[in-house]
C-alpha cells in the first residue's frame, strides 16, 4: 500500500501532464480546471503518504535497473515537507491560473505537472543517482514555465535558466562520480556517509553545494533568478520561487546533513558556507532595495530568503536547522502569495513598476491585504510566520556558538546580519505597503516627471478564482504564525532525525 502510494504520488503528475496536454487540445479552460483537480489529487496522495509516515510505516521503493546503483525512492520527513509544499502550491497556483493565464493554458498545466513530477521525484529520491535523473527532468520542465510567455526576454531567460541548470547538473554528476568511486555509496537519506576530514571530500562537498546552490540561487550564482522570475508569468514565478527554488536549498540540507552529517561540524568548511549564506541574505536584500520593478524586487527578495535556508543548513545546530526548514515552509507561503498578488495587480493594471502602485489599495483591497500580510511576515513582524524562522535561526546561531561550531564573533555578526536583513526587508516592502494603501496616484506621477497620460483604467479586483488561492495563502502566513505548532511538528521530525 505504502509503495503504491509513493509511486502514485510521483507518477500521477507525470500522467496528469499528458492528460492536461490532451485536454488542452480540446478545451482550454477545461484543461486548467482539470489541472487544478489533478493537483488536488496529488496533494491528497502526498497527504496520504504523510499519514502513513506518521503512523511509522517505512515508505520506500527500490528497483534494480542493472546498474551498480539502484533506483531508490523513499519518503522521509524532509522530503514530505517539500512535497507537501510543492503540491499545495501547485494546487493553489493552478487554481489561480484558471483565470490568470491567457494563452496556452493547456501547455502551462502540462509543464506545471511535469515539473511537479520532477520535483516530487527529487524530494523522494533515496540516492544521488535517482535524484540526478529527476533533477535533469525537473530543470528542463521548469525552464518551460519560464519561457511560457514566449517573449524574447522570456526565451532568453529560459535559455539562461537551462544553461545554469546544466552547469549545476554537471557539478552534481562530477560529485556523484567521485563519491561513488570512493565510497561506493550514494545514499542521501542517511545521517552522513563520509568523513569531511579527508582530502577529496571537500572537493565533493563544494561540487555538491555548487550544484544545488546554483539551482537555489546562492550568492555568486544568483543572477539567473532575477532574470527568469520577471520573465515568467507571475503564477509560474510563485511556484518557482515558493517551491522549486527550494529544491536547491533542500539539496544543500541533504548534502550537509545527509551526506556529511556530523563530521562536518566544526571545520572551516561550514563557515565558508555560512559566509556565502550571509552574503546571499544581505546581498539579495540590498539588490532588492535598488529595484524599481515589483517582480524583479520579489525575485531578489527570494535570493535573500534562500540565504536564510542555507544559513540554517550551514550552522549545524538543531535549532538552526529547524529555522532553516521552517523558513522553507514560511517562504513558500509568503513569496507565493506575494507573487500571486503581484500577478493580479499586473493582470488588472498591466503595470508592475513600483511607481504605478500608489493608491492601489483602494482599488484592490483584497490583493493589497494579501500583499501586506505576506510582506509583514517577510519583515518579521512577530505574530506572522516569518518571525519564527528568524527567531529559530538566531537562537540556533547562538546554540551553534555554544556548541563550538562557529566563533563567537561570527555568531554575533550572523545575528547582526539576520537583524539587519529584517530591516532591509522593511526598507523595500515598507514603501510599497505605505504607498499602496495611503499613496495617491496623481501626485506620484507628477512628481516623477513622467507626463501622465491620464488613462482612467477601470480596474478593480480580479474574480474569486484568483482571489481565493491568493488570499488563503496570505492569511495563512498569519494563521500559521499563531498556530506555529503545526509547521513545527513537521520540522521537529526532520530535526530529531538528524540530531
Amino acid at each position, binding site marked *: 500500500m505504502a509503495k503504491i502510494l509513493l509511486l502514485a504520488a510521483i507518477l500521477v503528475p507525470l500522467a496528469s501532464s499528458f492528460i492536461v496536454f490532451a485536454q488542452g487540445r480540446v478545451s482550454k479552460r477545461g484543461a486548467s480546471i482539470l489541472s487544478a483537480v489533478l493537483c488536488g489529487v496529488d496533494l491528497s496522495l502526498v497527504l496520504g503518504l504523510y499519514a502513513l509516515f506518521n503512523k511509522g510505516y517505512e515508505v520506500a521503493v527500490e528497483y534494480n535497473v542493472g546498474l551498480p546503483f539502484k533506483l531508490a525512492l523513499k519518503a522521509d520527513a524532509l522530503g514530505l515537507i517539500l512535497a507537501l509544499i510543492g503540491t499545495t502550491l501547485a494546487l493553489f497556483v493552478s487554481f489561480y491560473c484558471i483565470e490568470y493565464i491567457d494563452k496556452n493554458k493547456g501547455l502551462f498545466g502540462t509543464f506545471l505537472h511535469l515539473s511537479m513530477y520532477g520535483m516530487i521525484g527529487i524530494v523522494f529520491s533515496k540516492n544521488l543517482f535517482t535524484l540526478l535523473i529527476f533533477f535533469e527532468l525537473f530543470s528542463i520542465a521548469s525552464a518551460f514555465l519560464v519561457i511560457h510567455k514566449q517573449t524574447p526576454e522570456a526565451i532568453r531567460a529560459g535559455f539562461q535558466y537551462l544553461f545554469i541548470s546544466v552547469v549545476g547538473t554537471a557539478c552534481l554528476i562530477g560529485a556523484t562520480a567521485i563519491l561513488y568511486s570512493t565510497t561506493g555509496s550514494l545514499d542521501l537519506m542517511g545521517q552522513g556517509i563520509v568523513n569531511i576530514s579527508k582530502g577529496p571530500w571537500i572537493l565533493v562537498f563544494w561540487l555538491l553545494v555548487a550544484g544545488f546552490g546554483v539551482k537555489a540561487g546562492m550568492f555568486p550564482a544568483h543572477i539567473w533568478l532575477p532574470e527568469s522570475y520577471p520573465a515568467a508569468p507571475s503564477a509560474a514565478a510563485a511556484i518557482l520561487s515558493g517551491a522549486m527554488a527550494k529544491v536547491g536549498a533542500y539539496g544543500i540540507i541533504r548534502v550537509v546533513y545527509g551526506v556529511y552529517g556530523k563530521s562536518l561540524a566544526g571545520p572551516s568548511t561550514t563557515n565558508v558556507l555560512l559566509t556565502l549564506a550571509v552574503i546571499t541574505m544581505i546581498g539579495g536584500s540590498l539588490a532588492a532595495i535598488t529595484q524599481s520593478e515589483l517582480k524583479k524586487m520579489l525575485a531578489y527578495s527570494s535570493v535573500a530568503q534562500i540565504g536564510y535556508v542555507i544559513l540554517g543548513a550551514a550552522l549545524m545546530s538543531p535549532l538552526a536547522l529547524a529555522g532553516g526548514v521552517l523558513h522553507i515552509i514560511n517562504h513558500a507561503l509568503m513569496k507565493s502569495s506575494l507573487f500571486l498578488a503581484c500577478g493580479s495587480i499586473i493582470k488588472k493594471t498591466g503595470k508592475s513598476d513600483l511607481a504605478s502602485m500608489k493608491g492601489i489599495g483602494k482599488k484592490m483591497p483584497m490583493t493589497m491585504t494579501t500583499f501586506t500580510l505576506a510582506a509583514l511576515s517577510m519583515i518579521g513582524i512577530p505574530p506572522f510566520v516569518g518571525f*519564527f524562522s528568524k527567531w529559530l535561526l538566531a537562537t540556533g546561531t547562538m546554540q551553534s556558538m555554544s556548541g563550538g561550531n562557529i566563533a563567537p564573533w561570527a555568531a554575533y555578526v550572523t545575528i547582526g546580519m539576520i537583524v539587519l536583513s529584517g530591516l532591509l526587508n522593511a526598507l523595500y516592502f515598507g*514603501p510599497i505597503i505605505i504607498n499602496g494603501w495611503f499613496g495617491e496616484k496623481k501626485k506620484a506621477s507628477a512628481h516623477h516627471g513622467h507626463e501622465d497620460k491620464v488613462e482612467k483604467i477601470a480596474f478593480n479586483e480580479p474574480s474569486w478564482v484568483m482571489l481565493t488561492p491568493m488570499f488563503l495563502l496570505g492569511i495563512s502566513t498569519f494563521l500559521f504564525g499563531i498556530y506555529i505548532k503545526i509547521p513545527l511538528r513537521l520540522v521537529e521530525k526532520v530535526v530529531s532525525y538528524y540530531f
Partner: protein
Amino acid sequence: MIKFMLPAFIFIIGGLLTPLFKDIARKIYLVLVSLAGLIVVFSIKAGTVITINFLDFQLILLKADKLSLFVAYIFVIIGLFAVIYSLHIKESIFQLLGFCYLGSALGLVFAGDFLTLYIFWELVAVSSTGLILLNKDPEARNAGFRYIIMHLIGGLFLLGGIWLHYLNTGSLEIVRLAAGLPLYLVIVGAGINSGFMFLHTWLPDSYPKAPYYSSIFMSVFTTKTAVYLLARVAPGWSYIAYIGAAMAIFGVTMALMQNNTRKLLSYHIISQVGYMVAAIGIGTAVGINGAMYHLFNNILYKTALFMASGAVIYTLGKENLHEMGGLAKKMPFTTASVIIASLSITGIPFFNGFISKGLIFDAAHSNDYLYLMLELAAVGTFLSFLKFSYYGFLRPNPELEKKAVEAPWNMTVPMIGLAVLCFITGIFPGLVTRILPFANDVEFFTFDHFFGVSQLFIVITAVFVIGRVKVFAPHNRQTFDFDVAYVWTIEKLAVIPATFSLLNNWLESVLERIPVVISKAKQPAIIFTNYLSDFFTSIWIDFWLFSPVSDLNKTELEPNKKLAPALNQFFFIPFNWFISVLGNVGNKIATKATEIEAKYLNKGIQYLASFVWCIEELALGKDSAFSKRLDNMTNTIAGKMAKVEKDVIDKGSQEVMANLLWNIEELTPGGNKISSLSNRMDRIVIDGFINIIPAAIIYIGERVRRVQTGLVQNYALVVIFIVSVLIIMFSLKGGF
C-alpha cells in the same frame, strides 16, 4: 477561556470587529469595549500570572505586579478618554488601529517574558505607523515611513539584545539585566522608542504630521511603553540618568524655538520622558515611584494639551502659534483645560506635575549635576508653556476671535475630564500614591517645595512678561534637528546597495553574454589563432634575428611589429583599463565625499548658528541688525534645507530609493550610464577572457579535424603504430 479575557486581546479583537458596526452603534460599541477593558484591567489583582506554552517556551502573557498594573491603569483610562474624544471620526480603520495600538501597548506592559514583549512591541510600532498614515498628506506618508523604519531598527536592537540575553541565561523572563551587550542593545532599542537624544528625530517629525486624533493616541503609548521597559530592565543604571537629564534640557530648548503647537508638544514629550528616564536611572524606590508617577501625570496633561490643540485644528485648522490667539472667549473649555494642563506640566503647586516632579527632585537630591540639569529643564518648561498658552490662546487676536467656535461635546468632555483629573490628583496625591509600585513616604506639600517652586516661577513669569514681545513671540521659521545627520548617513550608506547593484549588473551582463558569445565564437577563434600564429612567428623570427648566423632583412620583422600591439591589446589594455577605472572611481568617490562633506559641514555650522542666534536674540532683542542678518541667513538656509529634505527625505519613499542610486552614474567612468561600463566590461573583459574558452575549443577542434584526412592508409598507420606500441608494452611487461 481566561486567556482570551486578557486586556490586550479585548482591545485588539474589539478593534478588529469595529468595521462591523455603523454610526451610533459603533459609537456605543467603542465606548463599551473601552469600558470593558477598563473594568478587566481594574479587576486584575497583583500577582496574577497567565501562561501559555509556545514553541519550547512558556510564554507569560500576563504577569501583573504593581508596576505593570500602575501603567496599565493609566493606559486604559486614557484609552477611554481618547476614544470618546475621537468618536466623531468616521473612518473605522482609525478606531481599529487605535484599539490595536492600545491593546498591544497593554499586552506589552503585562508581558512577563521577552518574547511576548517583543511581539507586542512590534505590534505597537506597526499599528502606530498606521495611525500616522491616516493623514493623506504625502508628507505624512514619508514621515510614517521614516517612523516605521526607525522603530523597526529599535525593535531589531531589542530583539538582538533579547537573543543574547536568552543565550546567556537560557531564560526569557523579564528581569533586571546586568551590564553587558544585551543590556546595551535593549537600551538602544528602548531608547529609540523613548526618544533618547540623537535617536529622537522620529518623534517631532511624525507626531505633528499625523492626524490630530491620532496624535492623542501616539503621544501616550509608544514612549511610555519604552519608559516602562527601561524601568523593568535597567533601573538604577546611572548612565541613563544623565541621558534623561540631557533629554529634558534638549527637549525644552527645542520646544522653546517651535512655532507649530504639536511640534512644541512633541519636543516636550522628549523633555518629560527625559525626567522619567533620569528618575529610572537614579533607580531608588523614590526614583522609580517618581518616574512612574510622572508617567501617569504626563499622560494626563500631555493628552489634554494634544486634545486642545486638536480641537483648534478641528475647528479652525490652525496649528501654528503665530496665527493663533484670541481663543479664550469663544473656546472657554479648551482654554481652561490648556491652562490647567500647562500649570500641571510646569509643576505649579496643587497640580499633579508638582507632585511627581517633587518626587523626582527628591530622588535626584543626592546628585548635584543631575538636580541642576533637571531644574534648568523645569525653567525651560515653564517658559515654553507660558509661550504656548499665552500666544496660542490668551493673547488678543480679533480676526480669529470672530471665527472661533467651541469644539463638539465629545472633544471638550474628555479634555475637561483630564484637566479635572490633573487637578484632583494634584490636591489629593494619595489617590495615586496608593497604587504606586513602591510604598511612598515622601511628604509633598512642604514649605521647601512650595518655596523653591514659587520663587523660581515668579522670577520666570516676570522674565516672560518683560520679554514677551521681543523675545518669545513666535514667528514662522524652521528649526534644525539631527535629521541632517541622518540624511548624511543615508547618503553615505547608499554606496553599499549601489555597489552591490553595480556588481550585480555586471554579473547579469556576463550571463546575458553567454548565448551571444557562444554564437559568435567563430570570430574570436580566428582572432585567437591569429594572435597565436603571430606570436609563434615572431618568436621564430626573433630567434633568427638574434642568432649570429642570421642575415635577415628588416622587412621580415613585420610579424613582430604586428605582435606588439596584439599582445598589448590582449594583456595590457585590460590591465591599464582596470588601473584607470580604479583611479577614476577613487577620484569620483573622493570628490563626491568632499562635496557632501562641504555641503553638510556648512549645514552643521549653520545649525550651530541657529543656536547662537537664539542666544543672541535673547540677549540683543529681536530688532537688532545682527539678529536680522542672522534671521535672514537662517531663513535662506531653511529654504535650502527644505529643498534638501524634499530631495532626499520628503520625496516619497520611492524617491528615497531612487536617490540611493545617486552614485551609480557618478561612479561610471567615461560615461553616464551603467550600460557604458558594462559595455566596456563586455568588450574587453568578457571578449578577452570569457571568449577564450569557446575560442580555445574551436581552435583545438580545428586542429584536431585535420587529423581526419579520410585516407585509409593514414588510419592504418595509426592503428599499426598503436599495435606496435602495445606489443612493446606487453613485451616489456613480460606478457599479459
